[in-house]
């Protein structure tokens, strides 16, 4: 499954970059995150629950390894999620640039393999669920960003 898109944050790339590195912020933003810890400079680990169609409240242990970091413009990551109902494995990348009308433009793309029951019975819905989760996460990050920008201003 590939997922690509763009999003415009109402704040500067450096602040967006900081948010993307903050497990507490990410945990709040990513729907279904139960725990998220930064276990190394380039590594996050945590537990998420996801519901996709008939597969409800499926728990995944997730690890994300960051690589090729070029603050505050580029970041790639390896994603590895495992659970009783399947797995998600793949890579993603994030490009940050100054947006035309101010703020930060994020271009993201990910390519993940999905397997097990979530692939077998949730296939029809995975992409829309993933898009929805992404949208919710980005919106939540943007809210947090605006709060920080305001607090900093």
């Amino acid at each position, binding site marked *: 499954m590939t997922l690509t898109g763009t999003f415009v944050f109402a704040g500067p790339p450096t602040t967006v970059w900081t948010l993307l590195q903050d497990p507490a912020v990410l945990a709040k933003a990513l729907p279904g995150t139960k725990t998220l810890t930064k276990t190394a400079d380039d590594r996050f680990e945590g537990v998420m629950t996801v519901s996709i*169609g*008939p597969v409800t409240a499926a728990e995944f242990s997730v690890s994300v390894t960051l690589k090729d970091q070029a603050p505050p413009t580029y970041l790639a990551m390896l994603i590895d999620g495992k659970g*009783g*109902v*399947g*797995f998600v*494995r793949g890579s993603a990348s994030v490009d940050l640039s100054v947006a035309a009308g101010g703020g930060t433009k994020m271009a993201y793309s990910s390519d993940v*393999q*999905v*397997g*097990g*029951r979530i*692939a*077998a*019975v949730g*296939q*029809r819905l995975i992409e829309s669920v993933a898009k929805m989760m992404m949208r919710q996460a980005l919106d939540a990050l943007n809210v947090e960003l605006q709060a920080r920008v305001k607090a900093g201003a």
Partner: protein
Amino acid sequence: MPPPSVGRPVLRNEDARLLTGRALFVDDVQLPGMLHVAFVRSIVAHGHLKGVDVTAACARPGVVAVYTADDLGAYATPGPVLVNPPPVPGHVFNARTQLPLARDKVRYVGEAVAMVVAESRYVAEDAVADVVVDIDPIDAVVDLEAALRPDAPLVHPDLASNVAAHVVQRKGHYAQARERADVVIKRRFHYDRGVAAAIENRAVVVEWDARAEELTIWDTTQAPIPIRNGLASMLGLLESQVRVVAPFVGGGFGPKIMMFYPEERLLPWAAMRLHRPLKWTEDRQENFYATTQERGQVHDAEMALSKDGRILGVHDVFLCDTGAYDPYGLTIPINSQCTLLGPYDIPNYESEFTSVFTNKPIVTPVRGAGRQHGVFVSERLLDIAAKQLGIDRVEIRKRNLLGPDQFPHNHEIMFQDSAPLVYDSGNYLPTLEQAADLIGYDAFRRDEQPRLRKQGRHVGLGIVCYVEGTGIGPYEGARVTVEPSGSVRVATGVGTQGQGHFTVLAQIVADALGVEVEDVRVVTGDTREFNWGTGTFASRGAVVAGSACHAAAMSVRAKALALASRALGVPADRLQLSGGRVTVPGSNNSGVTLGELAGKANPLRGAVTPGTEPGLESTAYFGPDRGSTASGVHAMIVEVDPETAAVEIKRYLVVHDCGAIINPLLVEGQIHGGVAHGIGNAFYESLVYDDQAQLLNASFMDYLLPTATDVPPIETAHRETPSPFNVLGLKGVGEAGCIPTGAVFAQAVEDALADVGLEIREIPLSPNRLWELIEERRRS
């Protein structure tokens, strides 16, 4: 004398039990102290199995045991090869069968990795989620052609390639025929199949009686006796210590003949260790992985013809997906190879196939068993040739049919039963003429189709021929017993999955013994009732077990007449047996009932003479040298919406010839069910795997089965060309409905879309696939 029941539409003996819920299915078996089993299955199609951590699962309250391959010790042997390859010279067959639980490597999504035994299925399922399986993934082998490239990952690394089998069969000299040809049609065809989707999934219940040292297994298998024999051997028990009961089973369709499924091996093994009865019932999602299925073939085929449409020869090279293991040998591709010849006189034939290992579930026969692939190729080639040569579709077929004087017809190649492919009998031309007549072929082409086309409606007609190799060996047996009550009991080794064995076998015996069909009680699929046999497959139950029942019943009849002759003092040849009574025609002697004769057959003291065998009972076996070949023609009329590619089936007609008919009602039932299967295969069902062999539609939400509204009323006409291979002249009919359905569907849709100029070379279609083909064609 009442008329014989054979040939009449007798209502089914078993329906009262089935319809009132009194029939026993495996999941109905409830035993005191019974534990429940669930399986941990690989969610990765291909990978090294690094470890299976069962600690958390074992600690869960209610869990009794969790087993991995390491716990099985010497029991962890690969399963048997069920069908040895026919002795085709030069064939290659790399047998690789699966372990009961995967060790070191997993080869398909759904392969069993661990077995959980718990107080309830709920607990067992929760514990399955507790098991941590560590798999290091390898790229999956999915595509058949990619699988054969030198850099492809190997499903079985001990082999040099992913080739499971390679077979070449030849008849005549194709190359010479090609040189003489006026036209050579060459195309590539894809034909994919699907799951059997029996309404009842697999289930196993096991009870080990440690005091009696007897193991009882209730199993949804189509082959109870071979299961009994195999498990006894694997478990170190006498065959007589193991009883396998295949009670009523809600549909077999092939996959339930697979031996041995891991679950079938593991439950008895664990029950003997735990001293508790065990139950496992497959859920629908498991069924998509853990039960065998049938899948894709890619054919590069060519047909050489003279300009008058005579087939001079056929050349076919094909790949066949066998999945991760190949326990069923070459049956499917050999069936495709043989059935391609169809009802036609094809003097020169060269066919080469390569069976390929992939990281997908195991492939074994599903109703049709490769036959539809072969029929699709030859029928499509004929359609294309007819167009190119400007010959009518029905006419080109007529010109190539084997004539009635060409039987027995030796095709000079080897069939799945290790016997040469010899058609026993057939009368193909009248079958085709009758089908063309009943569907109104000429009138449709001349009047109906042009009239509707003028109205902008896209209607089309398809008409194709097929043969079905049925009723193969090795053998079946039956024991017929007349009880003192006068009731008759028949026991046979085949299992029953809804075909109507309780009726057709009863009819055969009832006629031989002059009793009513409902007075004959048939017992199938219980190894304690009958000790010898093979199973229900290849449309052979009625042919092979039916012939055995007939032989046993005729022997009982002779015994009854001999006993009656002694009792009445009248020579046996002057006696008549009917209405459950032996009488002397033309005399006022009231005769003697079969029940009374059964009593006499159990002699009291002083009535025994040397050599006396008690009982009005006889056992007989029937083992044909080779199968008998049924045949038929399917025709259909469709209307296609060229915008949405929706296909409406207006009429569906089957004219078939399964030799002598025992019960036309049941024959029609078999055909109706088969056509429904075939329609699903042609236009609805498709197993979708991604590039890592993840099955993406493992539920009935996404895997479409045709429903009642998708299956039209099916018109049938019977023809009877008896088989000379058995006394009753029988041929099988179990798969006839689904074999040519893809081919007739393609032709009808093509005909409906004549203005688009479509050429359909693949099955399954679907509305969206058909739409894509229409769009591709319009753009080109």
